[in-house]
């Protein structure tokens, strides 16, 4: 129990706040190294500290960090709890950073196990420790099985196959050096394959980790004429979701007016200040500006007034909007209907009695299949452990590549390859140590 463990201790995607718990000797200084704010190593025990998690010069999230020094903690070890409000993506990112920085992903029930082993839980309670471990591991197993359907596991399997193949070609040279008819695995050959394998992992990391929706959320532009109710809609959302209303720069470099979290995914409302203060003369410019926003946003919510006929400008907007993912929200349905628009794909509502706002949310969910995203593609988004394993595998490949370039002998290079393969195997839950030998004898004809 001399290492530092970390895990997300709140249900992901359930709300705006999540907590990552870190336990073990050295956990305070480890978190401190990623924290900008007070020096956590010098603060009193059992205090909550405000600051930011910073990694590689980038601010990851605004956080509250609870410092609890041993022994008066759950695990009787130093414990740090990081409160984040970043949704799935940020929470995972922070966990992943912790795992990269020297923490180990806690096993199911491990905090409780430590509490017991450190004497905090007595023998009577200990009966339950096994139950907790069993229950949590069952849950983790389900989650990983669920998450590993589809493309990602296929990609990982195929990379593992490649590694296995490469390794067996190296090993066969080592274990059967007298077989002169075997391919000689030169460092050049190995280097070339490593480069390709490295690229495959890179691509996979890009695709899985940087899926834009997961990483930075969905940029939504609320478009419409002045006074059509854009701000009211926004405020209604934000109030209900208790989201953060800030004016910090969003990832799109536009001003984000507010954020809410829907199924754990960040919804960024992009400021449409450009059209808000337009007058007749510059209406044209306003439309142009709207076009630009439409161009960049992932989703356009075009807000129209139920009580008015469509203007020419709105007709033009409708045309443009139809080329993108869009929702038409006809506001003020508490007033008489004067709008001349077909009912298809249109959500009616009003911000006075908040009618139609849930339909609007559901429309967003259904367009981006957010319900499915959480369930079906859990791996991509929810599993920092897997991400950190893939990153580690990538580092092994890089280290092997470096060794090749330094003309380090193959027996040492092979070590990195085996580690990369085993690490990827952990992602799939397949750690099977006879596989290399099986491959060796399946692919090569050897022996007396």
């Amino acid at each position: 129990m001399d290492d530092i463990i970390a895990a997300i201790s709140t249900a992901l995607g359930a709300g705006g706040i999540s907590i990552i718990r870190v336990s073990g000797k050295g956990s305070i200084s480890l978190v401190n190294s990623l924290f900008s704010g007070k020096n956590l190593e010098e603060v009193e025990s059992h205090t909550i500290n405000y600051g930011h998690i910073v990694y590689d010069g980038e601010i990851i999230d605004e956080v509250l960090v609870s410092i609890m020094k041993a022994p008066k903690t759950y695990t009787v070890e130093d414990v740090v709890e990081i409160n984040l409000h970043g949704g799935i993506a940020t929470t995972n990112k922070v966990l992943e950073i912790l795992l990269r920085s020297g923490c180990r992903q806690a096993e199911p029930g491990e905090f409780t196990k430590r509490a017991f082993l450190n004497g905090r839980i007595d023998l009577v309670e200990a009966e339950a420790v096994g139950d907790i471990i069993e229950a949590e591991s069952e849950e983790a197993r389900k989650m990983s099985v669920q998450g590993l359907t589809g493309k990602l596991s296929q990609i990982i399997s195929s990379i593992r196959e490649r590694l296995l193949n490469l390794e067996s070609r190296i090993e066969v040279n080592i274990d059967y050096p007298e077989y002169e008819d075997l391919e000689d695995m030169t460092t050049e050959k190995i280097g070339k394959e490593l480069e390709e394998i490295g690229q495959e992992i890179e691509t996979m990391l890009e695709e899985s980790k940087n899926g834009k929706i997961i990483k930075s959320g969905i940029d939504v532009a609320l478009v419409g004429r002045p006074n059509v109710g854009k701000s009211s809609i926004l405020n209604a959302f934000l109030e209900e979701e208790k989201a953060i209303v800030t004016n910090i720069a969003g990832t799109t470099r536009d001003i984000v007016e507010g954020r809410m979290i829907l199924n754990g995914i960040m919804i960024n409302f992009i400021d449409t200040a450009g059209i808000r203060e337009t007058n007749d003369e510059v209406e044209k410019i306003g439309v142009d500006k709207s076009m630009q926003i439409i161009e960049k946003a992932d989703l356009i919510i075009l807000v129209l007034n139920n009580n008015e006929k469509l203007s020419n400008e709105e007709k033009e907007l409708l045309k443009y909007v139809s080329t993108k993912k869009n929702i038409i929200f006809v506001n003020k349905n508490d007033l008489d209907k004067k709008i001349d628009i077909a009912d298809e794909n249109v959500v009616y509502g009003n911000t006075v009695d908040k009618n139609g706002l849930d339909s609007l949310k559901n429309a967003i969910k259904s367009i981006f299949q957010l319900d499915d995203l959480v369930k079906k593609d859990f791996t991509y988004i929810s599993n920092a452990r897997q991400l950190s394993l893939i990153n580690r595998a990538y580092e092994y490949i890089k280290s092997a590549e470096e060794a090749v370039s330094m003309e380090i002998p193959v027996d040492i290079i092979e070590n990195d390859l085996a580690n990369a393969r085993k690490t990827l195997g952990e992602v799939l839950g397949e750690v099977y140590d006879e596989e290399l030998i099986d491959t060796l004898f399946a692919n090569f004809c050897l022996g007396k």
Partner: protein
Amino acid sequence: MKYDVIVVGGGHAGIEAAYATSKIGHSTLLITGNIKNIGDMPCNPSIGGSSKGVIVREVDALGGLMGKVADKALLQMKMLNSSKGPAVQCLRGQADKELYPSIMQKALMSQKNLELKEAIVEDLIVESNNVKGVILSDGSKIFCDILILTTGTYLKSEILRGSEKLAEGPHGEVRSNYLSDRLKDLGFKIIRLKTGTPPRIDVRTADLNKMQEELGDDTRYSFSFDGESSYDVNNQEKCYLIYTNHKTHEIIKDNLDKSSMYGGYVTGVGPRYCPSIEDKIVRFSDKERHILFLEPQSMVENSKYYNSYYLQGFSTSMPPDVQEEMVHSLEGLENARILEYAYAIEYDAIDPLQVKPSLESKILNGLFTAGQINGTSGYEEAAGQGIIAGINASRKIKGLEPLILKRNEAYIGVLIDDLVTKGTIEPYRMLTSRAEYRLLLRHDNADIRLRNYGFEAGLISDSQKEKLDRKILQCEEWKEKIKKIKIDKSILNNFFENARTSSLEEIIKRPVVNLEMLKEIYPEFKLCDKEILEELVIEVKYEGYIVKAYNDAQKLTKLEGKQIPSDIDYKKIKNLASEAREKLEKIRPISIAQASRISGVNPADISILAVYLRKEYGKNE
């Protein structure tokens, strides 16, 4: 009659076991079917090879005989994998099949406390799960405190050639008919294994000019840490390389149903590591030719192996007439005379999951097993287990804890751990890829790794120990010295472009720098002991990687230290998954580390086990 130790079997495992216990001082009886067969090499005429060469060194480091005897019986010697890195270099020697056993027999005959006896053991004397002795085929009884079974392939062995099945051991030796049944009655799970050997050829009838010569290395090498090998470096025997061809493959395909394997006469599981030639052709049907070697068996004139060459790669269970055809289809062997036909052999072994890491049986107190009876294949694998069985038999008599080599300490440790943790369904052969810490398990440092264990056991003398201590000390001194010694750029410029003045350490770390270059750069190295210099260069050059492997291994060592009491009742641990419980129950690992290596035992099970241990056994888990 009563002995401290009885060893049954005079193969490579039995030799090391009997030598160890008698050398330590226990009265030992070695029983074998034929004393003249002690140390026989029934299969290939070579010792060592990839990873196996390291095992020979490990046996030597512990104080065993194999390396020393091989050094006196070499016909050719090679360093394998010298270009593939420090972790996998190994020695392989062609050994004289006449000399090796005869030197071995002399060594054992002159060994104090050791008696040799010709007999066949057919039964055990057992009293309430304690082994007390053996019963011979004539009904006579011999008693002992510890029994070591190293029966090789002699338990109910059958020799197969085509449809012919002979109830005998290799070379027509007498087999044990009932011992394996008796073991089964006592609760042992008996497995049936198969292996095979190729034909032997009269070299005078072979056209060697048609074959590619395979020569030994120019440098003298020795297996043993204690003395020089005795072969003539400039006059080593040659091996020859040939290939199978289309005609060979046709003959085999046409006669496939006549082979014991494909004709359905074999029940045992054969190793993937040495498939018969018919297996190779069936399984790798697109391969146009297979590589074969012709290796000398003995240069002792008028001996039974003189002029007899071993056709490596051509193991088969075809009937003799087909073997004739097959051999004659090979280039250079068109008119060759077969001196001994190839055969497959089936034999009984025990399930190694019923063996403890000490090599003592879980079923019978005082019974140890080593070698092929435990499901392994190979002379070296047998010797490695034999010496451990011997050492642990002695430790048991003395009431000491057994010697259990860890996976990061020795290939022998990997071998035994694999056997007792994972079991085997085919004859187990060592491979370098089985050793996750192979960078630590090098052949050059086997003495540093293991000699102290041999010393502690009483198998290594004071002077051998002093030599080791000197080596370690000098290595350490050099490691400090090379940091301080600066080599001027004017010298280095002869070797590298744009060289700067650097310390000797920095120079050694350069990948391109080898031993020969070093001696030129820093002539004082020419005076340095070769062994020490090699050790130094490897340790310095690959320091980063070695340290990394060492640190990884340390984590493992910690878990190895977390012992599981032998009386643990897994049924009482309520949350264990049923597969894990079943496996733990069966294998009964001795430590948390061993438990975690069992397939089907998951991290959650390990956690639950750890919590249970703390709860039941308190802080001293």
